[in-house]
């Protein structure tokens, strides 16, 4: 939030031509990898993200297993070339935090008690980053779980909402993320009316957050529809490609 950059054009539209509540173009494919039990690929703006699921499988070493349910392991990772400056491939503090946040969100969706003493591994690889990677990553990871045939309480779709130059906006791109005033990633399950992932940083008043939440629910409902379509396509065609 250093230098002065204008995030809106004269016609009131955003730098990429979107309206305040408009999502970036989204492309989703399910079942894109040959070895993973389940996989999904998402493009959202210039984000390119792969998610893969292995399991449920025996939890080893045994002391990590739980007698009454399966455990989840989750890695959110950014490719070294996903960012403007090359990123060290070792996990950063940010990646460690997001791996936890995403695991928590997925944990609330998986019917873990069906698979005691097992583990499910979820890998989210950001190949190219353009703002909102944790949300797009979650949207893909949920589909990879479904593709792996793991029983879920429902899908969840995620989208960041936030504030830029005083206006509440949806699906922040890189520029808006960097120079805007607030960023609030939300994952929402429309069937159960539940928020599974919630973070915020930046500054927003109570009223602004209320407005942002309402936009987030609408946006994630749209993405949820795309998730359902991608699953349908997957199970009718079974095409596999990145």
């Amino acid at each position, binding site marked *: 939030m250093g230098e002065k950059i204008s995030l809106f054009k004269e016609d009131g539209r955003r730098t990429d031509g979107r309206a305040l509540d408009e999502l970036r173009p989204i492309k989703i494919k399910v079942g894109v990898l040959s070895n993973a039990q389940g996989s999904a690929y998402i493009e959202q703006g210039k984000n390119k993200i792969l998610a893969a699921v292995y399991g449920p499988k025996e939890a080893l070493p045994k002391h990590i297993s739980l007698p009454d349910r399966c455990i989840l392991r989750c890695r959110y990772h950014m490719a070294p070339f996903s960012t403007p400056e090359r990123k060290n491939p070792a996990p950063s503090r940010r990646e460690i935090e997001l791996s936890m946040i995403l695991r928590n969100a997925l*944990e609330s969706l998986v019917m873990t008690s069906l698979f005691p003493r097992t583990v499910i591994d979820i890998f989210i690889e950001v190949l190219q980053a353009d703002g909102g990677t944790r949300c797009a990553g979650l949207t893909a990871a949920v589909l990879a779980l479904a593709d792996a045939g793991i029983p879920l309480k429902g899908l969840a779709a995620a989208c960041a909402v936030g504030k830029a130059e005083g206006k509440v906006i949806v699906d922040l791109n890189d520029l808006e993320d960097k120079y805007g005033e607030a960023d609030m990633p939300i994952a929402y399950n429309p069937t159960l009316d539940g928020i599974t992932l919630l973070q*915020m940083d930046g500054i927003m*008043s109570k009223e602004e957050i209320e407005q942002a939440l309402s936009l987030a629910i609408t946006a994630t409902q749209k993405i949820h529809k795309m998730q359902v379509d991608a699953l349908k396509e997957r199970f009718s065609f079974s095409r596999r490609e990145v």
Partner: protein
Amino acid sequence: MSITEQRPIISKLEKQELFRFLAEGRRVDGRSLLQYRNLSVQLGYIEKAEGSALVELGNTKVLAAVKVGVALPFADTPNEGILIVNAELVPLASPVFEPGPPSEESISLARYVDRSIRESKTIDLSSLCIVPGRSVYSLYIDLYILDYDGNLIDASVIASVNALSTTMLPKYSLEGQNIKKLDEYFKLELKDYPVSLTYAFFGDKYVVDPCLNEEYASDFTVSMTVKSDDRFCAIQKNGGGMLSPRSFLDLLEKSITLGKELRRVAYSQIVKK
């Protein structure tokens, strides 16, 4: 890899009791649902650090200390000081804390406290520049968890802000190409007094400032940091489970009210009247 944590098992009896109390709007330790535990703040606990505070929130003890140094600024903010927050879950505080590199819990805690201070602009980082592009002050906040009975986040934010408020920075003079440390000091000025409020959820019920047993028995927690002007600067849901949009909106309202109260108690020694 983040891995499902193995929470210590609370006995069924304990859990039943906890829920029975909640159903009646009470808590096992006698508090009401939206009541904080006793809070005490001891300023300047570590004389050798440039700033410090020891905070006790019930049996949770957090020591925050500020070390001041001089560093090269980041390339994209050549005129700003550097703020780094680090948290150590010291193994003497709890059988579940293990020695070793920072765990995801400690990283997540440090990053939340960092956001609470940075986004609220509690410190004006542009006032911490010595020579633009060359030398800026670096503030290292180390959070040391000494005793662990839940709600590290709220205690840590309070400890950090109090520690910052006691921080004295050495002055420097520019001598040719080099800077020279003087034997004069100035007080770090605080621009805001943020407080974090953490709620633990049990189904559709929630309590504020959960103790450890409540954290273990809960579905998840939500933390919110409120600035002096009642705006929010950090929010985070921790743990599995689903938060209903309705409850989220409730929390926003509650946090503004509770925040005012907590801020008064937490910063009674440092806020100018």
